[in-house]
């Protein structure tokens, strides 16, 4: 079953325009619950309350404010906020093409497939071909549903994909953190850790992993629906290994006999 496009746009690469459609690449498969009132099982709704008067305030009557560290509140009017909103546009503007490592993978937020829109199929596949040949990733800007995005343009399985990026300032960089200090690690323990890791070495196969928890949630719901019994047990959290050498030795021995 084909997926419905979520947005139509024109991808601009220098002087060339490629009409495209945007598709969500991620499918939400988690089980969603609703919050209900315990006694009558009616769904709950959220509201705003003035804690001083205990009065309910309608969303339309509420304002937004920014709280300063000094304890001041700056009230922002709706029309002032509207002025800071990005201008609506159908353009996805590619502003730079970079070597594949230049756009940090830790900024990746959410991928979207690009598909050809009417009359753009030839240019669309020319883009895919040119991206493959260049080996570069594009950096693109676009405004979708009143929100400005920065994204990476790259190929996935041979098709152009846009990956929305985190704002760089929202990601804590590992370079800003101090490496843990301490006495030099025991060489014997390091050797054993390497040996154990080699014993557990494998290739990465994404298809080898399944969301078993989701299946169990679905089972739980089915069991409860038919009036079946469910058990609730919680084990304790294990403590840190005190003797590293012994734990490593035992692990290696266990693997050898496995």
């Amino acid at each position, binding site marked *: 079953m084909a997926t419905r496009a979520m947005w139509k746009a024109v991808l601009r690469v220098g002087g060339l325009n490629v009409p495209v459609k945007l598709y969500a690449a991620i499918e939400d498969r988690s089980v969603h619950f609703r919050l209900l009132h315990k006694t009558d099982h009616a769904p709950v709704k959220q509201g705003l309350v003035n804690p001083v008067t205990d009065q309910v305030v309608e969303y339309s009557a509420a304002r937004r404010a920014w709280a300063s560290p000094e304890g001041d509140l700056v009230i922002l009017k709706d029309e002032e906020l509207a002025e800071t909103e990005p201008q609506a546009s159908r353009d996805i503007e590619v502003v730079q093409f970079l070597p594949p490592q230049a756009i940090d993978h830790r900024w990746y937020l959410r991928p979207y497939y690009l598909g050809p829109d009417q009359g753009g199929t030839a240019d669309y596949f020319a883009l895919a071909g040119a991206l493959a040949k260049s080996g570069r990733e594009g950096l693109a800007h676009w405004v979708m549903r009143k929100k400005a995005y920065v994204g990476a343009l790259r190929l996935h399985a041979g098709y152009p994909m846009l990956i929305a990026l985190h704002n760089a300032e929202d990601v804590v960089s590992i370079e800003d953190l101090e490496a843990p200090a301490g006495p030099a690690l025991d060489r014997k323990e390091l050797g054993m850790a390497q040996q154990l890791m080699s014993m557990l070495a494998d290739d990465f196969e994404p298809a080898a992993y399944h969301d078993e928890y989701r299946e169990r949630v679905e089972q739980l719901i089915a069991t409860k629906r038919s009036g079946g019994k469910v058990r609730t047990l919680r084990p304790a959290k294990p403590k840190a290994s005190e003797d590293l050498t012994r734990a490593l030795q*035992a692990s290696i021995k266990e693997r050898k006999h496995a």
Partner: protein
Amino acid sequence: MPESKHKKRDVQRPRSFWSGTIAFGLVSIPVSLYIASRSGGISLRMVDRDGTPLRRRYFCSKDAGPLEADDIVRGYEVEKDQFVIVKDEELEALAPEKSREIDLKRFVPLDQIDPIWFERGYFLAPDKGAMKAYRLLANTMEQKHRAGIATFVMRDKEYLVAIIGQQGLLRAETLRFHDELRTPDDIGLPTPDKVDAARIKAMQKEIRALSSDDLDPELLSDAHRHQLRELIDRKLAEGTDVVEAPEAAEEEEPESAEVVDLMAILKQSLGKSDGSPAKRGKDSALDDLSKTELYERARELDIPGRSKLSREQLIEAIRAKS
């Protein structure tokens, strides 16, 4: 430092997203996961017309009465308006081991993991007594260029996770499950027929013209955020629509403070030998605090004129007082 001070500090720590154990063979490493990113934007709060900060509260959709946390249950809608109620304990009991443990059964080459699978980044901080094993694992993975792979359950959802050793630290990337990423076939994208070589050439030419070896950081900046920031600064400077927040308003800290706090925590728990508060120098720790945190401390110590002080002045004033 008196004991009560430590407790206060601990309250200010951002909550870890998950706390449990990493299993490397039979080696157990208790850790806490901290999120490495935030949703972004400048966080605004809802206020009444006069500036009174409003609270979000739940109401029953039927009788419109206000609800406390104890009045609320979770239900799964099996048919319209028909729910199966599911208790927290029942969900927790579904995968008790996986809720507590990240069992690294496989170590895969780091470069085999396509970043398209990355869902969200976290940092791992060692819990009490785990520092040596933490360093050993981080070090070994870094040397071997391998990441540990496991599945585990966090906040009622199972995740595939890659644990990565980098710069002596452990970080985690949750990965999407195979069936969560659609294929071009699922979308219904057309298969390419003969591609026009001249069109490819023309596109390559445009790509070359826009090529650069270095990322221009300016291109990553969020114009909307800057404009909002400017609007706020302008109104602050003019004093228009600025009101003093009641004391209660400081309960919820703006999200931006959280990231800074996280860095302070990691620096504190990783930088010192075992992260135990007793070994922490009380003075140097101040430098790691965000201005919001410093202001909080100044408020506790009742330092006069604290709202007018700069970050450095706050540190000095706190040092002088404690």
